[in-house]
């Protein structure tokens, strides 16, 4: 078989993980001084920086919404982020389904800038998680965290959190973003084909991953806010 062995007979993946194992997550908040809120997240070798500016006055008068804020998301992939250095590829924008209480800020604008520093699969999920952390850091009221995770299917075995190698070897990849405390699904996207019989197990694995990510992110947020509690206790 010429194809790379993505799943060994022992059930381990190319990077030594088990099928239902996430990559190591490192998250930090308040990494940029200029932005109102910022976050940096590493999921394995995927590294994303997010910056939030606002709520602020709307830059273009045309876009003002009189009952809520507009959200402007800019997504950028660094040319040095992949193994082959590329000139600027597609600059696509997607609505990442972040749940904000935008009605609290009428006639204003919230800018979210996402920068992929290193791309190793699962950019969308890393971007969503980074944006959530940056919005929390900015103190913008939110319904809940939005946690995203991917899951795919290799040799009929559902696997969690695909890396670039697994992603690029024609295996389907499903990205799921949920509100962990209510379990509501905010986003579900897949750009390849997956047999319908596998969908349920893949989606539930991704949801499980989201909950694990929520635990990790929540711990980071609580850890960084600890000094606030200490200062108020005095």
């Amino acid at each position, binding site marked *: 078989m010429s194809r790379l062995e993505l799943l060994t007979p022992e059930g381990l993946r190319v990077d030594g993980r088990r099928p239902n194992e996430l990559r190591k997550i490192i998250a930090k908040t308040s990494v940029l001084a200029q932005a109102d809120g910022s976050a940096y997240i590493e999921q394995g070798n995927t590294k994303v920086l997010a910056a939030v500016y606002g709520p602020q006055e709307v830059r273009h008068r045309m876009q003002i919404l009189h009952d809520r804020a507009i959200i402007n998301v800019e997504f950028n992939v660094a040319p040095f982020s992949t193994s082959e250095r590329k000139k600027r590829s597609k600059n696509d924008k997607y609505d990442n389904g972040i749940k904000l209480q935008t009605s609290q800020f009428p006639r204003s604008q919230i800018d979210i800038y996402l920068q992929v520093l290193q791309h190793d699969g699962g950019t969308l999920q890393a971007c969503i998680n980074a944006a959530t952390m940056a919005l*929390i850091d900015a*103190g913008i*009221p939110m*319904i*809940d965290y939005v946690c995203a995770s991917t899951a795919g299917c290799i040799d009929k075995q559902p696997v969690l959190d695909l890396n670039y190698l697994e992603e690029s070897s024609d295996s389907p990849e499903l990205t799921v973003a949920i*509100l962990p405390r209510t379990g509501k699904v905010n986003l579900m996207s897949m750009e390849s084909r997956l047999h319908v019989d596998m969908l349920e197990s893949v989606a539930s694995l991704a949801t499980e991953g989201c909950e694990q990510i929520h635990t990790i992110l929540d711990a980071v947020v609580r850890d960084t*806010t*600890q000094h*606030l509690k200490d200062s108020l*206790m005095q």
Partner: protein
Amino acid sequence: MASTIVTPGQRLGYAQDFTAGSGTYERDGLLYASVVGVKKVLKDATSHLETITIVREKEQSAVPSVGSMITGKITKVNPRFASVSINVVDSTPCREDFQGVIRVQDVRATERDKVKIYNSFRPGDIVRAQVISLGDARSYYLSTAQNELGVIFAKSVAGETMIPVSWQEMQCPKTKVIEYRKCAKPF
């Protein structure tokens, strides 16, 4: 339980037991947090319910609203108005300056038509003023038409801090030159 850290989406209690304060929201009869911060339960004198509020780590910058007292610095003057860079709102320093203008008709309450901006403010003066309107897109409209409002600190041409001698004059202690300002009444 004095205070605990809560994160967005965390359940705080039933809506019938508490009133939702800032940083919280109500959904399906339950109260949830919407920002990261410390939970505070406050006794409300007017209602029998206690209010839950979330005190945020980074307090939002003070924003001028109609009626608030501001302290700022005159940045430029022209015959129609004086521009002010607002530094302090009520008693909270702003994270970044806001722009305001004191129009010639808002300098004082009497003899408005005889007001000359040049005889009321100079660039560099520190003034206390009241916000009368949110103004246009660029600046807040301010007024000094009260006895307690006007210039509270000014330097003379010689560079000395001047002493107010009347409500519209200030004197330089070094050169004894009298300069005109719309002075604030000390309180």
